């Protein structure tokens, strides 16, 4: 990004909460890189940013809490845009949000319990390996199939809508914007799952929620992104508050640097994304997700060079 490289050595910045000194351009660059990717693929990028922060040595607890804070900000402008286009189902968003808040609270309880046992790093990394592995793998297979099908038949992918057992559940509610009349149980359940992920992994959870909204709830595609951003914004705001008040791990200086880099990167990413084919984009995203998953898995599987780790007392 056109910064004069001679400045780099002098741009160390001390992060007040992480209590370490990091190069400001490295953080802006990471923010920018993830921003480009999120602009290209239309994803939040939390699931890539948090592991990258682990890799540069930010303590996982700080990375997760700070990333939640960053996601609030990056989803805010997205939600505004969707409100203008009226592509937010507020009623459905609120039901998902109720689940999300319950899930986030459960997630924080689990997070803090494992922190007291000294196993929180393991918890966060295991969650990443499992979810990135499953999501990346499914995405990879699906986009390979799509590419094969489009080559054979020249397009036309059928929309799948499963609504057999969903229809039998009680507590039905009408969602006008989505044109649905379904039970509130599935959306609350989806919300809870996403809330847990937000608290433990420092992600928005769009990568789980968007497919769930389409395939499980049967929502129309045009309201899916706006509604999920609406839910994500409030759940990550709640998560940020929980981390800030129980663990004191939200680093605002880190969040702002990542954010500024991210906003700039996203502008470029969107332009690149428009020029690429959707199936090719998906397969590249899948490969990247699997690569991050692989790196984290190796860290757990291979014998570390230092078996010991230090934690300052009182935590």
């Amino acid at each position: 990004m056109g910064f004069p490289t001679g400045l780099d050595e002098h741009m160390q910045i001390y992060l007040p909460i992480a209590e370490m000194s990091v190069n400001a351009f490295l953080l802006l660059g990471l923010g920018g890189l993830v921003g480009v990717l999120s602009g290209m693929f239309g994803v939040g990028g939390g699931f890539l940013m948090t592991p990258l922060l682990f890799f540069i040595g930010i303590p996982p607890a700080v990375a997760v809490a700070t990333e939640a804070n960053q996601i609030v900000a990056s989803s805010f402008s997205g939600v505004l845009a969707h409100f203008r286009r009226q592509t937010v189902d507020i009623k459905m968003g609120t039901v998902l949000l109720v689940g999300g808040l319950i899930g986030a609270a459960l997630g924080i309880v689990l997070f803090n319990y494992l922190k007291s046992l000294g196993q929180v790093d393991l918890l966060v990394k295991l969650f990443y390996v499992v979810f990135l592995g499953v999501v990346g793998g499914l995405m990879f297979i699906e986009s390979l199939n799509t590419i094969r099908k489009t080559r054979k038949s020249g397009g036309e992918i059928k929309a799948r809508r499963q609504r057999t057992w969903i229809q039998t559940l009680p507590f039905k509610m009408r969602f006008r914007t989505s044109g649905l009349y379904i039970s509130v149980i599935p959306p609350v359940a989806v919300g809870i799952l996403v809330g847990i992920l937000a608290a433990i992994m420092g992600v928005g959870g769009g990568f789980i929620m968007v497919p769930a909204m389409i395939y499980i709830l049967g929502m129309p595609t045009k309201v899916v992104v706006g509604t999920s951003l609406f839910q994500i914004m409030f759940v990550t705001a709640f998560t940020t508050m929980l981390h800030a008040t129980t663990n004191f791990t939200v680093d605002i200086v880190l969040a702002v640097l990542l954010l500024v880099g991210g906003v700039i990167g996203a502008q470029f990413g969107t332009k690149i994304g428009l020029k690429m084919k959707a199936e090719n984009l998906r397969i590249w995203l899948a490969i990247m997700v699997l690569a991050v998953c692989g790196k984290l898995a190796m860290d757990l599987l291979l014998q570390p060079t230092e078996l010991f780790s230090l934690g300052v007392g009182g935590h």
Partner: protein
Amino acid sequence: MRYLLACLLMFPGLLMAEEEVVLGLSKKHVSITTTFDGSEILIFGAVKRESPVPDTELHVVITVAGPSRPVTVRRKAKWLGLIWVNNAAVEVDLAPSFYAVASTGPMSDVLSATENLRHRISIENAIRSVGAPDNVTDSAAFTKAVIRIRRNADLYQQLEGQVALDQQTLFRTAIKMPANLTEGDYTTRIFLAREGKVISHQETTIEVRKVGLERWLFNMSRQSPALYGLMSLAIAIAAGWGASAAFRLARRD
């Protein structure tokens, strides 16, 4: 009466060491600012003496110790033969967050083991570990791990031969402190030694403090975390929204 007189005559020699340290520091405060990237402190001084220089060799040892806090040391082991998991923990109850020991020569030449232990001078002696849980039999490995990890992070430094001594009188050394310092009072001690024995010592403190924005943010995050959380959200939203609004404007022109 005669006995008392004898005592008084002997006293000055006992009370006043023949050689004393006069100490100087290049700075008494280290400020952690937003652009803090470590600090170097010059510690210097002179040996004041009333009598001629003795024949034996004079040595100077300088230690700088950060605030001590209990540290939990965890050890990973393979779990279910598959992944590496923390499975044993030992509480090391006193370990300085930073410790540098500089001397005019190799520690074994400068000080006897007993003097070293008495004044807790070398890194190994500055750390104190009491009880290990029953399932840990090799608690020494955990203390060693603290030293190894902190030494690799430049938080523990053994600087043998790094104190310069001129004409048996003027001494100086420079201690580099890394960027990830813990706040607090850093105790600086200077020892004069002859024939392996400490003959005089002097102590002072260097204050390491976060200042300005760093201090304000850190204190706020601990003292009023709810307010800090709300402020973080507001700042992040404003920054994100502002940056994308700026981009929209720039594109329109």
